[in-house]
């Protein structure tokens, strides 16, 4: 009589165990975005010596798998969870040397309570609204991200001058009060990427920090002083329809990395700034909300330097970025939007950037979104050395016009 009972108990506990196991299983999910891009470029240079205007135009178009992300998530037990983000960019092929494959996040989270979470490993730190989701294209209505977050511009626009790309330790939490949540996050990480040693094509270690120390690529051989520290304080409504926050970081800009500045970017006097570690503070503010069928997201970033050579040479060194997007859900499945971006880049030479975009995102179903975006990117440099000792320009203007058609798919 007891055996059937025992069997029933085992069956019942077995069924519960299966459910618990389901919850603890490794989850694999992802997103991908394929695009067709058409680009028209126009370069206009006004030469200082003669006043002549040089013009150059080009046109190009391409299909591409812009980005594919694979995420692995595991709830290890009641307190620990792990998360991995593998990112493939721009038709990645190691065989053909196209695009890139990179480990964007790999961290372990310890949850003490809602007010205290500790994340350790490679992670996107909490900075403004977009930094934590900058490569989650499926969450964004646009194809081409705000320029300081856009990876396609990363080598051109020095993204890391404006935002902290990665951190390695983050303490964060939430405090609920009335109808709102207060969020906090504090993080630490390596110095900016250019300080980290990398590998030359011949396999040797490439860096100009401390050759004696370097033996592995991907490691940060800089001192503790140069590391990244930062945080964010935020407030959001309990239904998450309104969010705002302020962010900051402290680290150093690697002005020893002279190769980062091409000869045409800096005039000779500004090149005198190179060769040292420039103390850098990034300040950020963000606001995003949904109100009825309207959505808005906006960010401000100000980068300031405390750098003696710049003061001695009386050269201005700072950067700024502002971004605003206003969208409207014309249908439950169709969002139209327009956005404005502005950036300035003072580093001995003044440069201004303006980006105007308009677009649409049409959600076919939960997994598939079709996107279209039209972008005008305008970059204006003043007082530019085109060829050291030969050509000098009063102004150097690049206008790029992009048309993007994209398909974003949740996997």
């Amino acid at each position, binding site marked *: 009589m007891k055996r059937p009972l025992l069997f029933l108990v085992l069956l019942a506990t077995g069924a*519960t165990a299966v*459910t618990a196991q389901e919850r603890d299983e490794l989850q694999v*999910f992802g997103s991908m975005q394929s695009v067709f891009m058409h680009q028209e470029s126009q370069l206009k240079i006004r030469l200082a010596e003669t006043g002549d205007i040089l013009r150059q135009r080009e046109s190009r178009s391409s299909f591409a798998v812009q980005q594919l992300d694979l995420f692995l998530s595991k709830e290890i037990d009641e307190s620990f969870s792990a998360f991995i983000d593998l990112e493939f960019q721009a038709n990645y092929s190691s065989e053909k040397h196209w695009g890139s494959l990179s480990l964007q996040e790999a*961290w372990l989270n310890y949850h003490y309570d809602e007010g205290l979470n500790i994340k350790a490993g490679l992670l996107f730190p909490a900075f403004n609204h977009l930094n934590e989701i900058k490569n989650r294209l*499926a*969450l964004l209505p646009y194809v081409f991200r705000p320029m300081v977050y856009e990876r396609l511009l990363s080598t051109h626009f020095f993204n890391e001058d404006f935002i902290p790309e990665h951190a390695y330790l983050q303490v964060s939490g939430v405090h609920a009060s009335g109808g709102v949540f207060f969020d906090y996050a504090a993080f630490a990480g390596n110095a900016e990427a250019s300080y980290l040693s990398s590998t030359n094509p011949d396999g040797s270690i490439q860096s100009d920090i401390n050759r004696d120390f370097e033996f592995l690529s991907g490691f940060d051989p800089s001192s503790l002083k140069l590391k990244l520290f930062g945080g964010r304080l935020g407030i959001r409504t309990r239904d998450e329809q309104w969010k705002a926050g302020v962010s900051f970081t402290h680290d150093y800009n690697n002005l020893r990395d002279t190769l980062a500045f091409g000869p045409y970017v800096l005039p000779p006097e500004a090149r005198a700034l190179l060769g040292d570690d420039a103390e850098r503070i990034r300040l950020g503010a963000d606001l995003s909300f949904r109100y009825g069928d309207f959505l808005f997201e906006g960010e401000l970033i100000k980068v300031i330097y405390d750098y003696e050579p710049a003061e001695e040479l009386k050269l201005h060194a700072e950067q700024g970025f502002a971004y605003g997007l206003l969208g409207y859900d014309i249908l439950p499945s169709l969002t139209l939007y327009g956005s404005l971006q502005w950036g300035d880049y003072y580093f001995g030479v003044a440069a201004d950037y303006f980006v105007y975009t308009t677009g649409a995102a049409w959600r076919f179903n939960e997994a598939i979104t079709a996107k279209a975006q039209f972008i005008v990117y305008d970059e204006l440099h003043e007082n530019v050395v085109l060829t050291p000792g030969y050509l000098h320009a009063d102004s150097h203007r690049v206008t790029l016009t992009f048309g993007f058609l994209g398909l974003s798919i*949740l996997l």
Partner: protein
Amino acid sequence: MRAIIAYSVRVHTLRLMLLAAALCIPAALCAQTTIIVNDAVNVRSLSAKDILDIYTLNRVHWDDGTRISVFDLKGGKTKESFLAALGMTEEEFKRIWLRKQFTGKARPPRALATEEEVIDLVSRTPGAIGYVSERPAKNLPNVRIIAKVK
């Protein structure tokens, strides 16, 4: 006596439906939704704010540290009623869930086709929470009604 009670319930339901129709509110929005938890969950009551925090994945652990496993319905009047009670749309929830999932902060609720599946899985999953239409507590083995929302 039973016939009288059944008749009075029918009349009351009809009145509510007529009132809802008169106010141009779908009858589903006026229905009561029962929030159920696994019997082992060490919490006695939940406020509407608590339920919102759990379903927006802002609260992912019970007070004793057990993870909350959230169950959802794929569709139907009970779901409409539940969403209306929380004052949010399905799209708003899905946007929040996607961001939480893709940043590794929480897993989205598992959506089930029927209320019976919700009851079954909540009864078998430690730390589970779900919602179903109003029904007698005796029909819910290993499951406890923790709140009702309207």
